[in-house]
């Protein structure tokens, strides 16, 4: 079976069958990471370019590990050590990389839409590893796999996404993917962090997190992205933590079996209190483990077979 798309630029590219195939493949690839030899020869001889034009540890390491577990060669490429610093345009850089004939390109960039631009310039599949304020599809897929693992189902669940919805590509990809898969999504955060056009999505909107927490089966906390705060959107981190952070107080009406997720990196004491981040409800580290499996599945599905 093949995916219906050549690139993974956003959740919008995927239909329900694609999502099911990705999750199933990821689930069955997980076992490789538990073997004495954590490597299979599936992508031997394939070259994967990891182009991270924006800082990343987790996602980049996750893609690199996924590629290596499938025996692909990886080449890292970042903005700081590239010719972009010497004045080369992004498209020229990518055309040069294309000339080296890679089999797949993973790209992260601070501007929305760059992966789409590159996908038109290269012949190989492109995976969006996060573009500006737009999408982060692999994060949404690994979150979905984590939810499925724990809740044993997806359809009909209530998921609350809390925090800076406007600046979060994780939130956007998750809203799109979860609603596509039949999950009831609610979003909550300060009004200053709610996108103006949030009503175009099929989600419930709240400005007080106590409205969404009691019915949530899963709570996804978003990171306060200090690097993306162009203006002051809340008076202080302390105030944010008190009203919009997860802590014993805000959690008191949560379901007993609520699952807490966070895409990382965690600002402890801001969006999530340490005792909550380390509680049995938290699956933050499962998300990281599942991230490798989901990315292995995507690499396998996008560059395993020949083009047809």
């Amino acid at each position, binding site marked *: 079976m093949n995916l219906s798309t050549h690139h993974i630029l956003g959740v919008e590219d995927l239909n329900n069958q694609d999502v099911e195939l990705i999750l199933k493949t990821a689930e069955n690839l997980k*076992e490789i990471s538990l073997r004495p030899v954590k490597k299979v020869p*599936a992508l031997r001889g*394939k070259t994967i370019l990891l182009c991270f034009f924006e800082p990343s540890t987790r996602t980049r390491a996750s893609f690199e590990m996924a590629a290596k577990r*499938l025996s692909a060669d990886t080449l890292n490429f970042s903005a700081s050590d590239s010719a972009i610093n010497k004045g080369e345009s992004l498209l020229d850089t990518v055309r040069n990389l294309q000339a080296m004939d890679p089999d797949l390109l993973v790209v992260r960039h601070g501007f929305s839409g760059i992966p789409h631009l590159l996908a038109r310039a290269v012949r190989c599949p492109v995976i969006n590893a996060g573009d500006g304020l737009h999408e982060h599809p692999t994060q949404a897929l690994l979150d979905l796999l984590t939810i499925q693992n724990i809740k044993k189902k997806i359809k009909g669940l209530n998921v609350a996404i809390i925090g800076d919805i406007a600046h979060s590509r994780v939130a956007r990809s998750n809203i799109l993917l979860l609603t596509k898969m039949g999950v009831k999504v609610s979003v909550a955060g300060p009004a200053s962090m709610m996108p103006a056009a949030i009503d175009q999505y099929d989600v419930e909107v709240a400005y007080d997190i106590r409205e969404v927490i009691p019915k949530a089966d899963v709570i996804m906390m978003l990171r306060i992205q200090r690097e993306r705060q162009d203006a002051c959107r809340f008076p202080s981190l302390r105030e944010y933590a008190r009203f919009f952070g997860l802590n014993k107080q805000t959690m008191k009406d949560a379901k007993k079996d609520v699952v807490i997720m966070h895409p990382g990196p965690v600002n402890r004491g801001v969006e999530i209190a340490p005792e909550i981040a380390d509680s049995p409800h938290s699956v933050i580290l499962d998300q990281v483990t599942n991230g490798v499996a989901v990315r292995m599945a995507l690499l396998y599905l996008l560059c*395993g077979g020949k083009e047809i």
Partner: protein
Amino acid sequence: MAETKLLMTEEQMDQVFLEMARKVAANGEDVALIGIRSRGVPLAHWLAKHVETLTKRTPKLGALDINLYRDDLSEVGEHPVIKETDIPFKVEGTGIILVDDVLYTGRTIRAAMDAIVDFGRPKYVRLAVLVDRGWRELPIQADYTGKKIETTADEVVKVMVKELDGKNEVVLKKDFSKRF
């Protein structure tokens, strides 16, 4: 249109596994049976049942998906769907019998052997197949063979198992679409 010829009934399949189990039991040592997905898995369970009856010991059982080890992954247009690999025992030092339905080119078995050594260094690997249809492309032979038959290139040996196909039966089909 396809012509179908019955090769083995359920009773004959059972007889084959009983005979194999006798040989396995005669060795007197504990073995692990690993079925190759998809149809090798229920067949491994079938063989294990007879081994258990004869030796009063339950053989270890595993399932292996070999798709990630195929030598034609970059040739095939359609991606093989990855199924679960489950080897819930230590491979290191264990005698292993691989179980598959049909032995044909031998490429699946090559892939399976490569996969197994990634789990550890087994004491030995032996091969049990229900049907050997000839046409080997690699120097691989079975240690336990249920039925050996001569086939032509346009024939398909189809092993059906209750768990996946609703019945236990082996048939030989002529597939005219394979004739050029």
